[in-house]
């Protein structure tokens, strides 16, 4: 572990940009392509950046790569799926494949458009009648293995769209895939 201050670094600092010096490699290289950015060499490090707070004080902040329990809400919408243009489809479940990074809570929902043909309104957007499906996944001992869960839903309308929401501090969420499944009526021309 390189010492931060007052210690001795480990030999030649080269290997980064051109400003710090380049350690010759064993194989041929084109020196015309060596960058001249004054970069800093090093093997381990920490991401940090200065932030000015509302009270006038300053701090160095970071994004902690050992902790994916985001302190803010996470939100994801899939595209609106044109399963059959102008026709209603029924989404009755969403298959979620995830990786176990630890206990996490999130919700799955589907939003679709219901057309109003009598000219009285612009139509409406509907979601699962019983509300978004709450999902609890993972285990305290994260094994990083991939698992599957179903979210059972009942949404009927056009252009269904999967919506995944994770509230802040609800655990580390890792989605591998999400698959809405349903049926549609194949009828005559519109």
């Amino acid at each position: 572990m390189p010492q931060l201050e007052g210690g001795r670094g480990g030999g030649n600092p080269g290997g980064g940009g051109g400003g710090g010096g380049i350690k010759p490699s064993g194989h041929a290289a084109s020196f015309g392509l060596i960058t001249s950015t004054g970069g800093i060499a090093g093997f381990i490090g920490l991401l940090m950046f200065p932030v000015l707070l509302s009270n006038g004080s300053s701090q160095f902040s970071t994004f902690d790569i050992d902790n994916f329990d985001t302190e803010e809400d996470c939100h994801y919408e899939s595209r609106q799926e044109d399963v059959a243009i102008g026709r209603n489809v029924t989404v009755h479940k969403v298959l979620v494949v995830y990786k176990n990074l630890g206990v996490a809570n999130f919700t799955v929902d589907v939003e679709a458009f219901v057309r109003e043909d009598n000219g009285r309104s612009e139509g409406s957007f509907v979601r699962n009648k019983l509300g978004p499906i709450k999902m609890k996944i993972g285990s305290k001992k994260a094994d990083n293995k991939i698992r599957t869960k179903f979210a059972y839903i009942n949404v009927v309308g056009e252009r269904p769209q999967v919506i995944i929401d994770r509230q802040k501090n609800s655990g580390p969420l890792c989605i591998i895939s999400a698959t809405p499944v349903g049926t549609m009526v194949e009828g005559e021309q519109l």
Partner: protein
Amino acid sequence: MAQQGYFEQTYQGPWKGIDVSMPPNKIGEQNTPNASNWIPRAGELRSRPRYGVLIDGPPDGSFINGHTAFIDSNNVAHTCAITNTGLWQLNAKWRKNPANSWNLIQRFPGNNFPAPNNPASSQIFIDKLFFTLGDVNLWQWDGITPSGKNPKPALQSIAVYDVTNNLTAGGLFLGELDSHLLLLNTTEQVQAAPGQPKLPTNFQQRIRWCVSGEPVFNVVTGTGGWDPTRDIGAGFDDLFDTPDAITGFITIGRTGFIFRVNGITELIPISQGLLPFDFDHLWASDRGIGSVFPFSIVNYGPIGMFISNDDIYQISISGFQKVGGKARNAIFEDLDQAVFAPIASMFPTFRFKYPYLTYLLAIPFANNKTKLWCYFVEDECWFPWGTINGYITGKIRVVPTI
């Protein structure tokens, strides 16, 4: 006769981020019309790394302009914070004693305190730290002084462009090319006549360079430094061919790129003596691809990125490429709300074990909030990372000595 059909549609990686270039029912299955706070590395859609405080600021509560790390000629590592009051160094035992994380190296002397609140522009050159804040100083610290054998002050303003009258220069941007340190968009002490007050004057179109490999004037030999009347290796140029201001500087390979609001100028080393550079304006008109935001220009290795009027560009050895792509419209809507110049950073890794080249754009909103946008170079996609409380005031860097 109507028949019941079955459908399923899988959304999976590689996740391609925000797409607002088409209606939400016309975009690709790997894209999203609306999302926040995800990192799509290795085909996984993960909630982004947790944001939090790492180290408190210096004890005097000063404004932090930036930070960097370097190894001095004695092979000692230093992690430094540059504030508007001076230069600070991180203690080796900061984790055990967080209340005393920072030691003051030196306050800016005389009338240079406090310094402007611009993001610090720094270079590590010949085992020394050089940085500038947009005032009339280019500061140097060698990591060794002051010491028992060398009682010189730690910080020295070394860009003396007029040795006879002791006039100094600084700049908004600092670069290095072909062993010349470069100051761009300079601010210089200007004196009407010897003995008159030295007034700081900004030259938005000026670039100054020092003698190759010798950024400090040697009073014994009379060589080196920034004064072209003392050493022909130093010099300056005003880019009067192009009618706008310098907004940044990067180097790729052996070529420097001087960014202006409405164009880009290539800086090509051609000699070590008089006229060491050739200036080639890629666009010399009053309208063209340049960088609108002065602190949005960044690079890492062979890749640079900047924000122009019409898109976000990636610059490399092979040329220019538009990378704002499908998220461009959403990003520019946020840029339109910026209350001052946004700051962009490019970093190769969040930590050594997590390499993922990222361009992070911090857009300052009203009410002390900053909206973050991330471009992940490997996956060529954009994801917004919500907002944080506060304003990012310097570049995001991976500090390798911690």
